[in-house]
């Protein structure tokens, strides 16, 4: 039950290096936050904001990649339906990709994302209703996420009895939802 731990905290190092400077006050004015600490915090804020933009860009890339995979899988499913071959596997794969659009990635991404969340049991139905329950999603809103999951479920069920027209109709909804997410995210 032991595992290596490598904890490197840039912020911690920065804070440590700034500690030696005591709070200084201008004569006649009360002591305030040392200017060098304020400057450090400002630099740190620049870094944090840049990282947030990086995270957002990465998630958009994940969504684009997932959407591309979904499109390719859709074509396979269509081809199999048209040629009257078993399309269930392809359609279930498509359902999984659509669900991943709602989750901003696959299971491995989910495993990483929860490291970024505050400790504690976040889920709370009342807070969820109020829209303040944060699962840590970056681009996909709660409403869009629900829509993707519902669409994934419908496509998954459709896999039991594949129908091209029904599949196309569901896919149009996926396209519409994805375009809305892209628009809201400033793609």
């Amino acid at each position, binding site marked *: *039950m*032991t595992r290596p731990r490598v904890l490197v905290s*840039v912020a911690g*190092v*920065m804070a440590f290096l*700034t500690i030696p*400077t005591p709070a200084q006050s201008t004569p006649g004015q009360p002591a305030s936050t040392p200017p*060098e600490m304020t*400057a*450090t915090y400002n*630099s740190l804020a620049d*870094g944090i904001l*840049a*990282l*947030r*933009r*990086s*995270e*957002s*860009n*990465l998630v*958009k*890339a994940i969504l684009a990649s997932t959407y591309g995979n979904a499109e390719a899988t859709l074509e396979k499913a269509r081809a199999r339906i048209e040629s009257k071959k078993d399309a269930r596997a392809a359609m*279930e794969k498509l359902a999984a990709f659509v*669900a991943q659009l709602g*989750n901003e990635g*696959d*299971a491995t991404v*989910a*495993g990483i994302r929860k*490291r970024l*969340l*505050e*400790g*504690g*049991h*976040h*889920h*709370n*139905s*009342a807070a*969820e*209703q109020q*829209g*303040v*329950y944060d*699962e840590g*999603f970056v681009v996909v*809103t*709660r*409403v869009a996420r629900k829509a993707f*999951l519902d669409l*994934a*479920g419908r*496509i*998954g*069920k459709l896999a039991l009895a594949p129908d091209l027209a029904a599949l196309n109709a569901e896919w149009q909804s996926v396209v519409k939802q994805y375009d809305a997410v892209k628009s809201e*995210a*400033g*793609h």
Partner: protein
Amino acid sequence: MVSPLIQVAAGACALALATACAGGSRGDARPTIAPPSSSSQPPALATASQPPALATASHPPVHAGFHFTDVALEAGLTRVVRAGRPSKDHLLDSAGTGAGWIDYDRDGNLDAYIVNGWRLSGSTILEKGPNALYRNRGDGTFEDVTERARVGGEGRWGSGVTVADYDNDGWPDMLVTNFGPNVLYRNRGDGTFENVAARAGVEAPGWNTGAAFLDADGDGDLDLYVAAYIDCTLEEVLKAVPTLNWKGVDKVATGPFGLAGAPDHFFLSDGRGGFTDATVEAGLQDRTLGYGFGVRAADFDRDGDSDIYVANDSDANYLYRNDGTGHFQDVGLWSGAAFDSHGAAQAGMGVAVGDYQGDGLLDILVTNFSEDFCTLRRGDGQGFFEDVSESSGVGPPTFTSLSWGTVMADLDDDGDLDIAIANGHIYPQVDRHPEFGLHYAQRNLLLANTGDGRFVDVTASAGPGFALVQPSRGLAAGDYDNDGDLDLLITNLEAPPNLLRNDSARGSWLTVSLVVPPGGRTPIGATVVVEAGGRRQIQDLATGGSYMSSHDPRLHFGLGSSGVADRIEVTWPGGARQVLTAIPANQRLTISRAQLDVAGPGR
């Protein structure tokens, strides 16, 4: 002064990351959660300070005959379950333990097994609580045979127990999951057990929790799925202090978010008592590292093999669909099994499986954290589920409590499945803030099935056993006194267990034991359909479920006013069917795969 070097390094790091991702397009600030729109609003829910009106408020009192009495102490079940520190500084302090029913000596009476934890003071270990095996004397009392049977838990901080005859020698064995290596107690058939976990290859050190034996690959022997919770060391547990800001008013134990999850394991049996870790090969790699607790295997899509459901705390639940060869695919995300009806992950703890509607299809109940519903998912028999927590009436009465062990079982023998739930908060600090209306010690819940697909809260009228207020965790249902109704064994933190004897007014009943000759194909995974009084009930023989606990290995059917089961159909693993007709009610029936060893007419 700020070091210029640090400034440059931080800026460069941020720049590098910013430009490395997604072509460096101008990104947005992290968006907030979208404001709720009218079209997406979930039904009105209660807030923490305003619990929802109980379902009983809008329904006439029904099933007033429920009556449970705690007889644990007079029956001799006295082992105190240890649970870390009183202040619950780490989640391990508050996770609690499970309990199980096992007829280890095959005398026809269910014996009780209680898993135990450790008691701490700060970072000092005060006591390594031993597990307890209580032999049922058959007169309503138990004797502690832990030492004689050699099943004290090997000094480990226990989690749960799963009972099954893993080596198919005719004697039930126990897998005890631990914070640390698991213990596999092989029943030697002489009243003693031996720990063969290392030899069998199932120790899997870690924080192991729920487990289920199942025949994943259909080869006739039992394979094993073991869920795991958080990846942490004992040193971290001992040094833990409450750091999580709870509602802005107190500090409580942190996690599970922010802590690394531990991977679940799947062990494939070699049919000779040994197992191989085949997690990856079977497609069961825990890539999310979900915080796993409850595990239950069942054939949810009715294709003749065992699928696996895992309740994860704060993560998406898993539904692993078996392709019939022992290879699995997680279909939870698009089958309605992973999230609630709003698409949100919940803090899953325990799991129960049963056909609450009597439509022949298996449904799933998952217990969740406080200020969240327990989630009832109605199955369609094709592997898809719909969250019916609201419409079924399960949601409102389960909202405030923090729920753990559970069972869907016919507790008044009227022919439909009721729900019992063990409750208790994980933060003792909540008692310092009565304004939130939450309590550390909580009443357990009893929800009666009204027979029309709905449940009503009958806790208040279910006798003194359901008036107890304790921090409960594990729950195992079993007819320990063989009187034809299911009793409830419940574990509590820093207290002895409760044994809620069922004294309810009840209907007719039938208890079905499925047996195979030693060396035969395991009966786990079999389904039994009982038709009586125009009603059709289906149950599956399974291990696992609840919260790290093991129910009665016999299947219990309530028959209402029917004095006879018109038809009983057993579908054994592999598909062989056995049909019995005109079976008198109110008996314990043994059905053997080898021969129609049936007590009663209708062979």
